[in-house]
């Protein structure tokens, strides 16, 4: 196999990993920015939609929303490049990243119990995702 052929075969795999990295980064930035903006927003959220619309004008909240929308679109693109059984388990790492960002940038206290719970969620989500591709509609 020539180097060019190897490169051609590797290209889709590298593209999938690049889109995956972009999705994880966008999700992390989106969650952090949204949380930062909401925690510094003076008005407390209620059942009325007005405070939510008002909060969306906050630059950090707006950045968070844009990043999360882009993450959603990137995830759709990722599904066209990779199987659900690959995407769900790998993207579950986002739960750990969220806990890490909360601890580092928002100075949250993350106890050993919460880390353990988060790790269990990642393992559980990976198992749910790895079994998802085998689902079939049952014929009655």
């Amino acid at each position, binding site marked *: 196999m020539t180097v060019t052929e190897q490169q051609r075969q590797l290209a889709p795999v590298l593209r999938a990993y690049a889109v995956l990295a972009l999705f994880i980064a966008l999700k992390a930035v989106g969650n952090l920015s949204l949380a930062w903006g909401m925690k510094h927003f003076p008005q407390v959220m209620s059942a009325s939609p007005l405070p939510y619309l008002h909060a969306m004008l906050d630059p950090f*909240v707006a950045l968070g929303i844009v990043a999360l929308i882009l993450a959603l679109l990137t995830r*759709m693109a990722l599904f066209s490049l990779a199987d659900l059984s690959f995407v769900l388990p790998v993207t579950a790492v986002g739960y750990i990243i969220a806990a890490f960002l909360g601890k580092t940038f928002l100075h949250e206290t993350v106890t050993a119990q919460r880390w353990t719970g988060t790790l269990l969620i990642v393992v559980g989500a990976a*198992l749910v995702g790895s079994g998802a591709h085998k689902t079939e*509609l049952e014929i009655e």
Partner: protein
Amino acid sequence: MRWILVGIMVAATVASDLLQSYEMKRAGEHSVSARGLVRLLGTIVQRRYLILAIVCMAVSFFSFMALVQAEPLSFAVPASAASFIFETLLAKLVLREHVGVRRAAGALIVLCGVVLVGE
């Protein structure tokens, strides 16, 4: 209050995902190309369950906004994984999908994780 918000967020996410899954299976396969996305927009406008799914998605997002304002991010994001438990259960009961042992075990492990994260 934290569990009420988690409950609303998870219920809205699960409802949205179930409605999308049910309606998209009826609508047939869509590609992720530019033409496919335009066709998808057309499908959304024509199918009321997809519009309802978007409303549920918005409710879920607003609940998440309220949750991250009052609670730590390290709780809010992992707690949102509780949707896996109900989606697995309802995929079996409502969508009549086959749920294998691995998937069921995964949902149970997520449940244990959510309990630990919330305590």
